[in-house]
């Protein structure tokens, strides 16, 4: 028995000598799969879907309308999570995302409804202002060397306060309506508020794949009118973020800036520029979210986006990114956002107490962080 063991061991050593360094242990396929940032999120997504298929399978959650419902919610999370993901990999946080959402929306509403500017100008000005504010966030972090956590926490309050003050100053209200009427016929508004593939969905309705309305003003129209632009934005941002991160030089710089900024700087990576650009991108994503929401509701409110910064960070962490930076994946963050959306809406469909949603969030966040720490130890080999 003993000699047999020895023989296989020796044979094993010889075999591995032919192929690789004997000091490296053979890595099992499972372990290899484990050290991908997305793995935890993929498992989580499968679990969540299986759970709700069992619990809420007949509640309409997986009917076309139900799917549309949680797809839109997930897409909202994806939009802010993509920005937060790239920023976190670059080694920084942005806690002002939620306030930025409120601010961007109110700016569009004030400019268009109160000042009478065309919607498209209002949207572009809002983008310019918010991306500029993102750059300000970034510059303060770079110049002072303070943790981005503190700097953007300050902006969380500054922007929220400004948003409410501006809204009350101009309209004496914190909700500004009437955007929808102005958006009619605007060339830029449908990019954020419309639906695409209308004809295709109509055709699906006509041939009976999709249910159609049988009563009311929309008789004959399919229950799902098309793919909302919100979802299109989410897909475009995932694609852009993923390609940028994994397939470009700039992506390598993002990893390097978050992994070790000094080491990166010593080989000539413009760490400051990378970080400021990522703050700007996060602000851009927040603005996309805000304007899609304004177009959907037809109004802007000063309290929109509260807690979104944390929800974005949770999506990213569920998606396998490390809070300390230098590691993560946009695809993972997107799956994290999907889990988030499905659970939030799924609990509603299954009739569970909505307060339980927060309990679930806390638990999944903790589980994700523990799993991520374990994964990092496997990658770096530290004990």
């Amino acid at each position: 028995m003993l000699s047999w063991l020895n023989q296989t061991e020796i044979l094993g050593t010889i075999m591995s000598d032919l192929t690789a360094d004997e000091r490296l242990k053979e890595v099992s396929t499972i372990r290899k799969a484990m050290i991908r940032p997305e793995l935890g999120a993929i498992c989580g997504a499968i679990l969540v879907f299986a759970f709700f298929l069992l619990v809420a399978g007949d509640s309409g959650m997986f009917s076309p309308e139900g799917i549309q419902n949680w797809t839109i919610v997930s897409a909202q999370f994806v939009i802010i999570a993509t920005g937060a993901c790239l920023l976190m990999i670059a080694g920084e946080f942005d806690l002002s995302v939620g306030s930025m959402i409120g601010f961007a929306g109110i700016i569009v509403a004030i400019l268009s409804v109160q000042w009478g500017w065309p919607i498209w100008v209002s949207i572009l000005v809002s983008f310019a202002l918010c991306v500029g504010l993102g750059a300000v966030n970034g510059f303060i972090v770079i110049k002072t060397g303070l943790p981005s956590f503190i700097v953007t926490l300050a902006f969380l309050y500054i922007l929220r306060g400004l948003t409410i003050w501006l809204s009350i100053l101009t309209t004496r209200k914190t909700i500004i309506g009437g955007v929808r009427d102005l958006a009619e016929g605007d060339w830029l508004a449908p990019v954020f508020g419309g639906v695409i593939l209308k004809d295709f969905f109509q055709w699906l309705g006509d041939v009976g794949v999709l249910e159609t309305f049988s009563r009311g003003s929309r008789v004959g129209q399919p229950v799902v009118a098309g793919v909302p632009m919100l979802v299109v934005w989410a897909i475009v941002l995932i694609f852009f973020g993923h390609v940028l991160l994994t397939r470009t030089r700039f992506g390598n710089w993002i990893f390097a800036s978050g992994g070790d900024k000094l080491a990166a700087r010593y080989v000539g990576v413009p760490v400051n520029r990378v970080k400021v650009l990522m703050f700007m991108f996060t602000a851009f994503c927040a603005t996309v979210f805000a304007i899609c929401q304004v177009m959907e509701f037809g109004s802007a409110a000063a309290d929109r986006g509260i807690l979104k910064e944390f929800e974005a960070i949770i999506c990213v962490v569920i998606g396998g990114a490390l809070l300390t930076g230098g590691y993560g994946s946009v695809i993972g963050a997107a799956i994290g956002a999907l889990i988030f959306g499905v659970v939030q809406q799924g609990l509603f469909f299954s009739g569970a107490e909505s307060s339980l949603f927060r309990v679930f969030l806390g638990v999944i966040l903790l589980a994700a962080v523990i799993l991520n720490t374990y994964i990092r130890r496997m990658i770096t080999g530290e004990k």
Partner: protein
Amino acid sequence: MTEPIIQMKNIEKHFGSVIALGGVSLDLVPGECHCLLGDNGAGKSTLIKTLSGVYKPSAGEIYFEGHPMNFDFPRDAIKAGIATVYQDLAMIPLMSVSRNFFMGNEPMKKIGPISFFDHRHANEVTMGEMRKFGINLRGPDQAVGTLSGGERQTVAIARAMYFGAKVLILDEPTSALGVRQTSNVLATVDKVRNDGIAVVFITHNVRHALAVGDLFTVLNRGTTLGTAMRGEITPEELQDMMAGGQELATLEGSIGGTV
């Protein structure tokens, strides 16, 4: 003897009222390993940071290939062919070897109007270069964190060589390493030197210095105590110069052997 690639003449560096370097002269010759020894605070780091473009000297001149050298950023020095490998700052542990290898020098491939990171090229080169230096990677996507400290130094040295370094500055590459890893790094230094690169090897371990050095310069309190050729100086003499002599000799006696 070939012409020196770098000549430092009476370099001074002051930080406020502190004189970190008080007139240091140094010649670096291609194919020679110049060991820079000195205890903590002797000015070794200031000297190499001056050489690698991080600091500007307060006085004195540096000639690179015969021309006065005036670097504003570390980037300029890297471009000119002066590569510095810092002890713990060489690599990013969470990133793959190939991403680390090409960090800041990413190979690009154009697809349509957009330039993409050419991963295939990067992976091939990384595997090949690592093999040259005797490191067998599991794959180019292996994280640097799984490599030993010595291997990380070797990757950093290989990277500097691949990108055309003419002068290689190693900042205490062996100070945190075990015996086996140290000999691997020293072997790498030897290989690099034989390829005709001017090497600056900073250490406070006399034995490591004697193992690969051709020239030995001892720094103490911001000035050179002299430069010796290989064979002109014994380990004990070097050790004494570094520590400022007598005191250490007595200490050494009481602990019974070479420090």
